């Protein structure tokens, strides 16, 4: 089968085949991912669900190019990325992926603006361009007035918005979010989810991991993972 197009003739953003990841802890091995097949089209809104330890984060790390698979293939935008070297992977992480973490992962020493600016440094933009883009991204998440605040001076919801601004600032192909509302109360979580909805309407492809049905309900497609394999998939809804 042609790897560049699926049955509908459309070029998929993500195509994963037979992907596997095994962790070794001394003598024992853990198959975090057994054999995963997944195709994601541009502008999909996909929620990954599943019990704790089923391999959701492992899969997200693969998609986000933070981890490399032990088996199988992964094409991103038609490029086989499962066997790339460090510098190309870093470039793709920088350009194609926007990652939002459950624990925010902001730099505590830097203010919101500098946190959001950071990916643009590695993209090679000049200072002026960086700051104007970072400003714009903060505006997008409704935090223009908090640009000079450091993470410790912000609420959890605000921190997560900064993290989302940072993920968006490079205009990535995919926004990945691993339990983005996991550390937030339900009201703040709902705010974040409505921000995601907005972004998706504006054309952003979003993949998120969640335990909560209410969060998953925002997405157009649900993929359930069980024991390192995909147990069910509601199928692509392309806009």
């Amino acid at each position, binding site marked *: 089968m042609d790897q560049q197009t699926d049955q509908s003739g459309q070029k998929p953003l993500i195509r994963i085949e037979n992907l596997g990841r095994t962790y070794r802890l001394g003598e024992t091995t853990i198959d975090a991912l057994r054999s995963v097949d997944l195709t994601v089209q541009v502008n999909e809104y996909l929620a990954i669900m599943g019990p704790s330890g089923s391999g959701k984060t492992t899969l997200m790390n693969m998609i986000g190019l933070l981890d490399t698979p032990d088996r199988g293939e992964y094409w991103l935008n038609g490029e086989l990325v499962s066997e790339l070297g460090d510098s190309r992977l870093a470039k793709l992480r920088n350009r194609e992926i926007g990652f939002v973490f459950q624990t925010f*992962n902001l730099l505590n020493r830097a203010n919101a603006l500098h946190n959001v600016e950071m990916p643009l440094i590695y993209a090679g933009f000049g200072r002026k361009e960086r700051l104007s883009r970072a400003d714009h991204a903060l505006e997008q998440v409704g935090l223009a007035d908090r640009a000079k605040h450091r993470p410790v001076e912000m609420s959890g919801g605000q921190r997560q918005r900064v993290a989302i601004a940072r993920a968006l600032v490079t205009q990535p192909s995919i926004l990945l979010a691993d339990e983005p509302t996991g550390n937030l109360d339900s009201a703040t979580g709902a705010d974040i989810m409505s921000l995601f909805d907005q972004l998706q309407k504006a054309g952003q492809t979003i993949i998120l991991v969640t335990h909560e049905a209410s969060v998953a309900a925002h997405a157009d497609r649900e993929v359930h993972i069980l024991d390192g394999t995909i147990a069910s998939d509601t199928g692509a809804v392309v806009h």
Partner: protein
Amino acid sequence: MMFVEMLRVAAQSIRANFFRAFLTMLGIIIGVAAVITMVALGTGAQRAINEQLDSLGGNVLSVRSGQGFHRGVAVQTDKLTADDVAALKRDVSSVTAIVPELSVRRQVKLGNQNRSLNIVGTTPEFADVNGFEMLYGRMITQGDVGAKRRVALLGGEVPVEFEIDPTQLIGQRLLIQGTSFEIIGIFEKKGSQMFDNQDKNVWIPISTAQYRVAGTDNLGKIGVQIAPGIDIGQAIIDVERVLRREHKIIPGARNDFNLSDRKQFLQMQQEATKIFSYLLAGIAGISLIVGGIGIMNIMLVTVTERTREIGIRKAMGATRANIMVQFLIEAMSLCIAGGIIGIILGGVASTLLANLAGWQTPVSVTAVTVAFVFSAGVGLFFGIWPASKAASLDPIAALRYE
């Protein structure tokens, strides 16, 4: 562009732990300051010796009366005489000047003060051969020697010794063991030369010394100046041959005089000083390396502390090279900052020591450049391991690090 950013991150990180950074830098500061000071001192010491070498007109051999042997028993003799001087003048072709000296220690009275000083009888050539310059007045003349005149020439420190203004001394009288002498001149200070300081001597004509002061015909020392370009080894052999003949020393017996070559001695001293200063600079260099190990230690701590930051940066698109360079810049910034402070401290220390030792201890551009480049190199060398450790961190493991 990215480099400027990395410098900023490095500055931020150093500022965040300023006291720790400063303590770490201290090793580099002390190391660099020590290298600068030691090199400056070494150069200064060598320069001082070089100046002495330059001040010697040609090469001067010193002949001193020494031990003779009578039936295998060493006896003190004073067997250098005017005949030896004449024979050397006549039979050693490479000789350009011969300066006899006769020193005795005598009580000297100037104004109302008494001092015990070295009285040296000599001839007019003394000043040229030994590189003495006149401060005031005139040198002893051949006429003074011929007429056994009671005239005296003072070393540069003598007026200080008697607490008298040197400008007032010419033409004044001074008593050597009760005998009155006219002061005809004062030498410029010469400073210490090879362990002895002649600036407190009083010079008088050799004949006057023999007949009016010491009461002996003998000489204590003969300075033999050899023409420039003549092989000193050959000159020594010639002088020795003539003196052995004059003293009727049978073949196989030992000399009853000592021959020493001042230039050769100075050159040996110069070599020794060079080795010594290299040694000191080497030890200072080792302290610089120890400082570098301190930098490496603190960089390893920094990398561990910032594991999570490294993970975040990698997730946002930093390459291994980016992370590596960032931490190298940080290590080198520490070293270079320490290096600059060390250079300033070393400069101050060398200047202070120079004043203390009375040497010129120049802080050379080379030493500063080398110290600077070396401290940057130390930063690079000792930064590489921590930086590559940071660069090779797995992004997921780094993000998970607590």
